[in-house]
């Protein structure tokens, strides 16, 4: 049950992310030194 639900939600999410979110910029504004992702994005 856990894996069925998880896989279903992840697949729906992955489709939406690839179609819509992938090209959008990330909101990374933060006090200095707090946005580690701005220097080491993944």
């Amino acid at each position: 049950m856990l894996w069925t639900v998880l896989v279903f939600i992840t697949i729906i999410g992955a489709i939406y992310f690839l179609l819509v979110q992938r090209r959008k910029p990330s909101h990374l504004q933060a006090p200095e030194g707090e946005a580690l992702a701005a220097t080491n994005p993944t």
Partner: protein
Amino acid sequence: MSHIMDIHDETGADAARDEADLAKFGYKQELRRSLGVFSSFAVAFSYISPSTGIFTLFALGLTTVGGVFIWSWPIVAIGQFVIALGWAELSSHYPVAGSVFQWTKYLSGKTYSWFAGWIYMFAGILTVTSVCVTLPLALIPAFNNMGWNMANNHSNQRIIAIVTLALITILNIFGVRLVALINNTGVLFEILGMVVFAFVLALFHHHQSGAVIFHTGGTSLTTGTFLVAMFMSLYVIYGFDTASTLAEETRNPRTEAPKAVLASVIGAFIIGAVFLFACLLAIPNLHDAIKNGFGPANIIDANFSNAFATVFLLVVSAAIFVCCLSIETSTIRLCFGMSRDDTLPGSGVLRKVHPRLHTPIGSCIAIGILAFIPMLQFAGAGIVAIAATGMIYLSYLIGNLALLKARLNGWPRVKAPFSLGRWGLPLTLLGIAWGGGMLVNFA
């Protein structure tokens, strides 16, 4: 009344300081900042809600390994407290709505944080559903004790769950002050109720000796069965990051949210341990209790009059109701936090905050509707609970992996009021080992 309950709007220099702090993250103060440390603790405590999980799953633990199952409580509490320490430090650095999503966004990056937030949001939605469908398990017997004669079947359980979901969604729309007022009252009743019942049971109805916590009652105790029995404790002790996700509504959140995160785990552990021990002491016959799948309601029923048992069921019902309320509040804040960054479908509607109520009404309604969907295929509380709990543990693991990577890259680089210092890295590693192990247990 609300001042007594630690709920009042932040004003003056304190408000200006917290607004300026939020502005550094690029966000405006739109939500209502009116929660003090008690309210923040209370909303996290009621998400954990020891009485809800113990009421629902005590029988699972007891029938699997007898009284020995109580040892899963401190083990899970310690494991989760290790994770809570990391969350407390993160909440001191990132006092914004959205917990795991926001932390991973700043620590790890866009794709990782988006999936973390997406999975955590649906874990929250499923948890709302799972707790809403738990309420009828206490409420219907309470109604019947009062002479209502309501059938305890799936149909009636679903109706009560849907009404509960509608009520908590409306309360959430009407604002955090109302939610906190109801929640704080509920938490006080829950703590008082559990402590009073525990002491009465332990002092006046102790049929078992203290050694009951070492008795299996004829069940087979192996590592495998103990891990199964552990599910009760695993189902209870999570959701402590709620204190962090309400940071934009908490006064001085960098200092108060970490305290509330940790206090909620400690408080739930103490109250739950006392109540669990008292319930075990008050079991009239351990073998019969295991054979018949006794839960706290049966134990109270076996020791007290019908009226006393009804009061217990009503206290548990109130606790479950505020539990539903706080889980939905937390999930709404995550939905709001993600949509404010334009990362969800319909973000424009989901992030809009009502100017008078100071609540993201679109997010409230969306979470309410999404939590309703699993109720259409309702197959009992247990199935939804397993999926919800597993996904929460997965989300926590995702958060901890991002935290580990960040620590290896030198995080934290700036000081915050709460810091783990040199203990940060080992505790994060321990949290990952614990969370990963428990996730394997769910699978």
